[in-house]
C-alpha cells in the first residue's frame, strides 16, 4: 500500500469550509484521512509547515495542440506545464487536428493522456462537426467516451439556431456548453481591443460589443433551453454585468476569467508585442476592474488560463499576422495571488475555490474536494516566497508569455496527482 503523508500544512478545503493546520494522508492514490497529528507508519513524508495545502487545482480551459500541432505543445508537455503551475487536472479544448468532434478522437486523447500526461486530462468535445458551426457533432458518443463539456472554442457558433440545438443536446447528456463569445462579424480583422490604444497604434479593433452580444444571446438561449451555459474567458464590463444579472434571475450560467484579463489591460502592451495578443483581447482598465469585481462578487466562478501555445516562428511576425493566444499554466496562481489575494480583494479560501470547487461544479467533476475516498490530488502553495518566471525554462513547448522575467510573490510549491508528487518547486 503506497502512502503519502503531508504534515502540518494549512489545509484549505472550500467544500467543507476547512481552514486549519492538519495532516493529510493519501493511500493508494486516494485521500485516506485529514486530521491533527495523524499516526501513520511507512509513509512518504512531505513537510508542509508554513505552506498551504489545497485540493488539486483544475484548469478547465487549456489547449494541448495534440493531435495535429505537436510542434506547439503535446499532451505530455502541456501536462508538465500544468504540473509546474500547480494544476492537477486540465481540460483540453477540441481545436486540434483532427478536431475532437467524435468519440474516436476523444478516446485517442484519453489514451495518450493515460500514457504520457502527468496530470489528469479531461477532454472537451466540439459543439459542431469540425467546429464549422453548422452540423452538431456526435455529442452523446463523446460524452460516453469521456468529454466533460462541449465548446467550439475559437470558432464560435454564429448561428443562434445551431446554438439552441447544441444547448438542448448538451442538456440531455448532462454537460455544459462552453462558449467563446465573439460575434465574428463585429470582430473581423481586429487585432486588439477597440479603444484609444488601438486607434493610437493603428491596429484594427475588436469591440467589447462583439463579446457582449454573444453573451446576451447565449444567456437568452440558456433561459429558453434550461441548459447550463458557461462563458469562457469573460473580459468585458457588460458581459460580467449580464452574467450577474442572469444569475440573479436563476439562469444556469457560469463564467471563467483568465489571469491575463484581470492582470493586464490594453494600455500595458509594449508596442506591437505579440505576446500580448489574444482573444478576447486585453481590454480597458474599466473592463479589468469589472472582471476583478466579478471574481469578488461571484459573477465569475472560475479562473482558467486559456493556455494557448504557439511556437516562436508564428509569434515572430507582423502583429496582424500573429496568431491569438498566450501560454498561462505556470503563471496563473502567481498572478491570482498578486492581483487578487495580496491586495486583499479576495481571501485565500476564495482563491482556492476559484481553482477547485468552482470548475468542479461547472463540469460536475468529482474533484476539488479533500474528502475521504476522493482522488489524491493536492496542490501545495506558498503565498510569500519570491520567484522569477523564466519562460525559457517552461515545461511548455512554446514561449509565448507576456510574463517572462516577472517576479512573483508566491506560487505553487508541489503538485500531487493521485498520491504521487509529479512536480515540486526544486524543479523550477
Amino acid at each position, binding site marked *: 500500500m503506497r502512502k503519502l503523508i503531508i504534515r502540518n500544512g494549512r489545509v484549505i478545503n472550500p467544500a467543507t469550509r476547512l481552514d486549519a493546520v492538519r495532516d493529510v494522508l493519501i493511500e493508494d492514490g486516494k485521500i485516506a484521512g485529514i486530521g491533527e497529528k495523524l499516526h501513520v507508519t511507512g509513509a512518504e513524508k512531505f513537510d508542509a509547515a508554513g505552506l498551504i495545502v489545497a485540493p488539486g487545482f483544475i484548469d478547465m480551459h487549456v489547449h494541448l495542440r495534440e493531435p495535429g500541432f505537436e510542434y506547439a505543445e503535446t499532451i505530455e508537455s502541456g501536462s508538465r506545464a500544468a504540473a509546474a503551475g500547480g494544476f492537477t487536472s486540465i481540460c483540453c479544448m477540441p481545436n486540434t487536428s483532427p478536431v475532437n468532434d467524435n468519440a474516436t478522437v476523444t478516446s485517442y486523447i484519453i489514451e495518450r493522456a493515460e500514457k504520457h500526461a502527468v496530470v489528469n486530462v479531461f477532454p472537451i468535445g466540439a459543439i459542431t462537426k469540425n467546429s464549422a458551426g453548422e452540423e452538431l457533432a456526435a455529442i452523446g458518443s463523446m460524452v460516453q467516451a469521456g468529454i466533460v463539456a462541449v465548446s467550439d472554442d475559437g470558432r464560435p457558433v454564429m448561428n443562434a439556431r445551431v446554438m439552441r440545438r447544441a444547448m438542448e443536446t448538451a442538456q440531455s447528456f448532462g454537460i455544459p456548453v462552453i462558449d467563446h463569445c465573439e460575434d465574428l462579424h463585429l470582430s473581423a*480583422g481586429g487585432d486588439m481591443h477597440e479603444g484609444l490604444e488601438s*486607434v*493610437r*497604434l493603428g491596429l*484594427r479593433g475588436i469591440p467589447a460589443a462583439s463579446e457582449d452580444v454573444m453573451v446576451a444571446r447565449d444567456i437568452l438561449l440558456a433561459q429558453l433551453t434550461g441548459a447550463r451555459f458557461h462563458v469562457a474567458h469573460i473580459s468585458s464590463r457588460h458581459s460580467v454585468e449580464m452574467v450577474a444579472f442572469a444569475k440573479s434571475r436563476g439562469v444556469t450560467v457560469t463564467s471563467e476569467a483568465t489571469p491575463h484579463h484581470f492582470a493586464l489591460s490594453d494600455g500595458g502592451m509594449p508596442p*506591437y508585442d505579440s505576446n500580448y495578443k489574444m482573444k478576447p483581447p486585453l481590454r480597458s482598465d474599466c473592463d479589468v476592474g469589472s472582471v476583478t469585481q466579478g471574481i469578488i462578487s461571484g459573477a465569475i466562478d472560475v479562473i482558467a488560463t486559456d493556455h494557448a501555445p504557439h511556437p516562436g516562428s508564428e509569434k515572430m*511576425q507582423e502583429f*496582424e499576422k500573429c496568431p491569438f493566444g498566450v501560454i498561462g499554466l505556470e503563471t496563473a496562481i502567481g498572478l491570482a495571488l498578486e492581483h487578487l489575494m495580496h491586495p486583499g480583494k479576495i481571501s485565500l479560501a476564495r482563491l482556492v475555490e476559484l481553482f477547485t470547487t468552482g470548475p468542479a461544479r461547472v463540469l460536475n467533476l468529482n474533484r476539488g474536494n479533500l474528502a475521504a475516498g476522493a482522488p489524491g490530488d493536492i496542490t501545495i502553495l506558498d503565498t510569500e516566497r519570491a520567484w522569477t518566471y523564466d519562460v525559457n525554462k517552461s515545461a511548455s513547448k512554446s514561449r509565448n508569455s507576456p510574463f517572462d522575467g516577472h517576479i512573483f510573490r508566491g506560487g505553487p510549491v508541489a503538485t500531487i496527482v493521485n498520491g504521487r508528487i509529479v512536480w515540486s518547486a526544486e524543479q523550477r
Partner: protein
Amino acid sequence: MPGGLLGIESLDRIEIETILDRAKTFQPQQSQNRRDMLRGRMIVNLFFEASTRTRTSFEIAAKRLGADAISISASGSSVDKGESLVDTLNTLGAMHPDAIVMRHSASGAPHFLARHLPTPIINAGDGTHEHPTQALLDARTILDRRPTLEGLRVAIIGDIAHSRVARSNMYLLSKFGAHIVLCGPASLLPVELRQIAPGVTLTHDIKDALRGADVIMMLRVQLERQHESAFSSSEYFRFYGLGLEHMSLAKPDAIVMHPGPINRGREISSEVADSQRSVILNQVENGIAVRMAVLERVLSN
C-alpha cells in the same frame, strides 16, 4: 536619432525643430549642389507596399547626400517567395547597411523589426499607424508660410481611422500647440481620437471643420481598400469632398495640402487642387529636404 525614426509620437519638440531647421537648408532654393556628408554610407529602401513618391523621394534624398541607396520592392523579391519579414530583414541586416528605410502595410512592422535588428530603421509608413516623414514635410511646408504652428487651426478631412498621415500630423501639430479639427463620417472617425493628443476636436460636418481654418489637409480616400464599405463611396465627395465653394469658409490665406496621390473628384476637386491655395507640389519638394535631414541625423553618429 541613433535608433532610427519610427514615429512622431515619441519625438520631442526640440528633435522635431532640429530636423525642420536642417531641412530648410536642404530646400532647392538654398542650394542645388550635391552634398557629400553621407558618402560611402549604404541605405536600403525596403518597400513592402507599392509607393512611387515616397520611395523616389528617399532615393533622391540619399543620393543628394552622397549615400548609396538601393531600393527593393516586395513584388518580385524573396518576399514574394514566402520569406518571412524577420528572415528578409535578417538577410538584409547581415549585409550591414547603415540604415533601412521601410514601408509596410502592417502597423508596427518597423517597431517589431527595430526590436530584433541592430540596423537603424526609418519608418516610411506602417499600415494605418504612422508616416513620420510626411508629418515633418507637412510641418516644413506650413512653416514656409507661417511663422509658427502654435494657435493654427488645422482641418484634417477624410478617412482618419485608416490614415497614418493623419496620426503623424496630429502628434506633431499637437506638440506645437495647433488646434486640430478632424473631420469625416463616424465610421472613419473613431471617437477615441478626441483623447489621442491635446488640442484635437472632431466633427462630421466639413463646413464646421473648414470654418476659420489656416490649413486644410485632405486625405486620400481609398474606400476600395477598406475591409468593408464604411461609407457609401458614391456620396463621399458630396459630403466630404473639398470644392472651391468651401474655400470661403476658411481663412483668406488658408492653404490646401494633400499627401498625394490625389483623387480628383473623389476627395478634392480639380479646381481646388490646381488653385493658388494648393501647396501640394511644395509638399513634394519639401519631402526630399526633410528626408535629407532625417537621413543625415539618423546616420550622423
